[in-house]
């Protein structure tokens, strides 16, 4: 079971933190509106 724990942990961490590493072009667009 311990390897399952590590798989779950690693998949979650990658899935959660990946968007922070990507460069985005729609930030400026989002800042332009309040929603």
């Amino acid at each position, binding site marked *: 079971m311990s390897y*399952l724990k590590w798989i*779950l942990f690693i998949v979650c961490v990658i899935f*959660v933190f990946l*968007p922070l590493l990507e460069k985005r072009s729609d*930030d400026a667009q989002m800042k332009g509106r309040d929603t």
Partner: protein
Amino acid sequence: MAEFGHFALLLALFLSGYAVFADLLGAWRKDTGSVLSGRNATIASLVCLTVSMITLWLLLVGSDFSVSYVADHTSKALPIVYRISALWAGAGGSLLLWLWLQVGFVVLLFCRLDKTKRLFAATARAAANVVSFFFLLVLVLDKNPFALSVVIPADGSGLNPLLQHPAMALHPPTLFIGYAAFAIPFAWSIASLARHNMQDEFELFKMARNWILLAWLFLTIGIVLGSWWAYEELGWGGYWSWDPVENSSLLPWLTATALLHCSRVYKPRTSIAVWLIILCLVTFSLCIFGTFLTRYGLVSSVHAFPEPGLGILFLVLLVIIWILTALLFWRAHRSSGLIMTGSVRPGVRLITINNCLLLLLTLVVFVGSLFPFFSEFFTNQKISLKPEYFTKITAPGGLVLLLLLCVCPYIYRYGIRKSWHTIGVVLVAAAALLSWLLTDKLSIPFFIICGFAGLNLAGDFVNRYIKSRNRSNKAVPQLNLRWYGARIVHIGVVLVFIGMAGSGGYDIEEQVALKRNEKIKVAGFDITFKNLKADHGSTFTAVTADLLVHKGDELIAELHPSQAYYSRSDKRTSEVDIKRTLAYDLYVALTQVDSSRDLINLNVLFKPLVNWIWIGSMVSVLGAALVLISFYRRKTALLKSEDKDTE
């Protein structure tokens, strides 16, 4: 395996905490990366909760008694259906189910909104995840369903025999779907307040409204299933005893009913919009408070399953929610976000009366439920209120609500004017009041107003039919499911009131002792005790009495009430038998058996019209489902037209 489930719970705790932080940071800094990270964290926490749920189910089905939750709520002899439903038999499992549903609903709605609503969705997710974080804290620190047994037993304690009933297998999950779905309007309200300009976004309100209806629908099913179980299984012949645990599900239902009516007349930037936000927050708070009341054991209940522990965290969560709400209202007020520029239609005032009445009933039930706590706090003496306190106040309230049901749709459409309808309402109200004063019985006014409400609803259908016939030479209009659904819900409500008035006002209850072949007359029925049979199962021993029921010379039923004894849990249950017709129920419970003297004691109840409560509830649920389908159809039609526009 239990360790894996516990690890998934810990990971979900971390992820929901992180999602709050990332979503708030992203919404504040308008940073897409943080918002997407928060969204992914919410999805990941749902995955972890799903893993935990599946793990717990595998442990329950596999009878792994090394886990104390499994040992406490299942046994080897327990049928597989009840081993599966044992997931929500205890505090830990039921909280896990609620949490899983809640996070699932949040993912379904707030993780799929398009780019233009991303910041709103992030704020709403943060609000919902604060609640999830607290629930997970309670789960991990106190009610861990994966905690190991100190000593591994050879067999588990088994499920309480009273809970081994189909209604009880379905009652908790339907209630939890309702509670969890109320998290959506709650999150919508917090996000609307935090981003106060969003009050103008009607589209977002419509999403919340659909979830309000869905939540109300499931809460209704849950409450009715609970009542039906109490009637069928507990052997006392009633379906509602105003117990604090029962009331804890009624409280959010009452405010949710007010919320539903309020959402019907919602208009952005009006006092109704602010009122709707408050109602959303009150309803979800009552769902949490109900859980606190039930699990913390603040007041004693016949359902007695308090497990104090860290239940106080629910109260902390409520305090946080309301401090946050107060701060957001203050901020919105300061930045002129609460300025009301819109005006409401005059007919809306009646909806306000409906809302005030429902909130008054909520307050009555709330104070009544907490009275033992208040009385002990102020006088050091625990005083519990009898069911009469509740019925004496709520019954007249129900009468006024019924009268409003006749008046509101008409006045909302045409305003107050001199017509046969207005005169009819005044006459009916006067007749109801007079009959109440003369007979001192509330059932008759209920029948009078129910009759009038039925006539009104029938009139509505006839009017619509005539209009559609006059229009028939033109284009055929699409079936308006929303219109029909709303009326069907009201027909159901009228039927429920008829059932309650009949069974409450004209019921007959008698305790009788019978020897073999002896006959006794109860409520015009001759009941003869013929035989006594013993039965042995793997977990119980039971005695069944064979009874013949005659009306005059005609045999109308053979009833077989029984009493079972479960040695493992040392519990005795009474399996009632009922002769059902649409006009009445003849309800017989075997209360005591003396086999040596061939003597039995029976509790016999004659309950007129009681089945209309269940029929009316089903009709109401059907009507609400039709309205929900109409909302879904409109949404898909709107999406299709948007697609065509973009093409």
